[in-house]
């Protein structure tokens, strides 16, 4: 996946001279995850720039660059390192188009490696998507497959609006035989697995977990559908609700905390739109409502296959069948 992301940036930079990659360590080192490897060499340090270590400064400078017609792609290195940039993100990046009645769009991509499962120490494993989702003016996107990593990042760079591009860092090393495909617009969910009994609504690092759970569920006689949202903002109500109406049951799965988390929004939307099709309440399987745990305990926090299957079991199958 890391190579697909890198290929997306390289292709975008080759096609469009206004695309600039910037951040701490993105140049000579190629990023701590090597996602920007080779870009500085190929396009020069003016196009792929090692900046001072200051996230607000990085994103703030990107705002000014976007004002002058560039398309900055900013790396935040780790999820929790993005927090110093929140004021720039919330007060300026997200609002500039609106403040100026469309005169100053902000075609900025903010790449945030996010989530846990790689044994990172504190401040290296947060899932911050709920903060971004709650901010009007931002698109929030997260790929789960190698193909989507390429396609969605190309779409994000091409977007005239700011995109928070969440990279599930534990999928960086996932592999696939793939070739750069047509770029799909941001905002479309996809059904990763067809099923009839219940819908698992998920995204990013939890997609492989849900696919594995769906395979395991077959042994129990449960035929699960898996919807990969890909885009949290805009939210694809259509694909999600069509699936839930087919299956009549839904579980939202993500590793971000549950209280006030993305699942709360998704469950509410599904309930509002599909209430009469539901055989059971929409359930959530989320990380616990705790600060991200130390690496030796993270497996207890992250929603795994068993926890997903437990939730599916609570969908009162007897009552509905």
């Amino acid at each position, binding site marked *: 996946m890391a190579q697909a992301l890198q290929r997306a940036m390289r292709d975008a930079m080759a096609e469009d001279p206004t695309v600039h990659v910037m951040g701490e360590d993105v140049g000579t080192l190629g990023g701590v995850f090597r996602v920007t490897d080779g870009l500085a060499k190929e396009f020069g340090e*003016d196009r792929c720039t090692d900046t001072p270590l200051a996230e607000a400064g990085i994103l*703030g400078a990107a705002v000014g660059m976007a004002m002058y017609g*560039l398309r900055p792609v900013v790396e935040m290195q780790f999820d929790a390192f993005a927090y110093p940039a929140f004021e720039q993100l919330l007060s300026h990046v997200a609002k500039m188009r609106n403040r100026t009645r469309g005169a100053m769009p902000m075609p900025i991509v903010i790449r945030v490696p996010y989530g846990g499962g790689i044994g990172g120490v504190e401040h290296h494993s947060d899932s911050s998507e709920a903060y971004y989702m709650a901010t009007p003016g931002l698109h929030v996107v997260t790929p789960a497959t190698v193909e989507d990593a390429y396609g969605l990042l190309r779409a994000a760079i091409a977007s005239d609006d700011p995109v928070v591009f969440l990279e599930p860092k534990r999928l960086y090393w996932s592999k696939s035989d793939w070739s750069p495909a047509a770029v799909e617009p941001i905002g479309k969910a996809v059904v990763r697995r067809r099923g009839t009994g219940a819908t698992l609504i998920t995204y990013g690092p939890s997609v492989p977990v849900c696919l594995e759970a769906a395979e395991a569920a077959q042994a129990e006689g449960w035929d699960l559908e898996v919807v990969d949202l890909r885009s949290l903002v805009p939210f694809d109500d259509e694909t999600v609700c069509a699936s839930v109406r087919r299956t009549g049951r839904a579980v939202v799965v993500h590793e971000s905390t549950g209280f006030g988390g993305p699942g709360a929004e998704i469950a509410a939307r599904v309930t509002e739109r599909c209430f009469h099709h539901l055989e059971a309440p929409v359930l959530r399987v989320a990380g616990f409502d705790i600060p991200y745990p130390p690496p030796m305990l993270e497996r207890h926090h992250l929603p795994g296959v068993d926890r997903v299957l437990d939730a599916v079991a609570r969908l009162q199958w007897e009552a509905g069948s």
Partner: protein
Amino acid sequence: MDSLQQRSSTVQEPPGAVPAHRPTPPPAWQPRTDPTPLLPDTEPLRVLGTDAVADADPALLLRLYAELIRGRRYNTQATALTKQGRLAVYPSTHGQEACEIAAALALEERDWLFPSYRDTLAAVARGLDPVQALTLLRGDWHTGYDPHEHRIAPLSTPLATQLPHAVGLAHAARLKGDDVVALAMVGDGGTSEGDFHEALNFAAVWQAPVVFLVQNNGFAISVPLAKQTAAPSLAHKAVGYGMPGRLVDGNDAIAVHQVLTEAVARARRGGGPTLVEAITYRIDAHTNADDATRYRAAGEVETWRAHDPILILERELTERGLLDEDGRRAAAEAAETMAAELRERMNAEPVLNPMDLFSHVYAEQTSQLREQAAQLRAELEAEGEA
């Protein structure tokens, strides 16, 4: 201390004997830049009342005078509009007109201004429509103008957050080969914000063509400078970033113009950023909603009134025979015409379209916003029927 010395004396080696395991010392430390030329002068630059004023262009002096008179009238008119409820709030620059106007006039047309919420006068001096400059404060929209048209970024309400934008824009312009300079304005309180630090650091590292102008008016709302910083001056902060710091009397319009013009020229020829601190004073309260008598003495205000930017310029021009009663009257009349027009236009109710609420959130509305827009449209239609 004694015991430490004793202990160290026990391991002392005979002179000249260097044990094989001793690591090679690192290269001798050298300062990266000689800090001396970066340091501000001990006194703020003053031109008015000194012999140096003879070198100033009389046409520029008269232009500054006319603009200051207009700026003062703008301040009093906008303050009056708050009392009539026509403006939600107005942060006056009464007393600071010289910093605002002389700085803006140091820019070329192709340059960019990055103002804070208090810098409406700088924007107007740059040619922005006085009513458009007040849109944010009237409350009909956040920014009343197309920033690209006048090369004025939106007035920034969060403190110092516009400074990194100025750096990024100036950097981008230089990458494109354009000799554009960005002037970024901030108050004394804003220099405590992290974005101030990050912007100056980025600008210096990138050698971006930016000029930072701190208008030190003594107070961040109520907090005096002594509680804001322990630095010798705000201009001294420049040294830590590796850029020159300059101190100027912010009420001396010609001194401000001179320092800013030099800093802009330096940036334009690739010399990098400059931090300018203009020492001035806010005669009015922070905004019309503030009671300045709670945190400052009347005597202090009166001292500064004697050093009023218009007063000291007018005295100079009169003494030099450049300004007479007719000249003063002409400037006052021009300002009055501007104020009358501003009053009239601000008294007209702005025409608002509630559907605009959804028009500029994204390039294309999301399905969620389309639904909400439909809801509002239905509500508006129902209101129309009622």
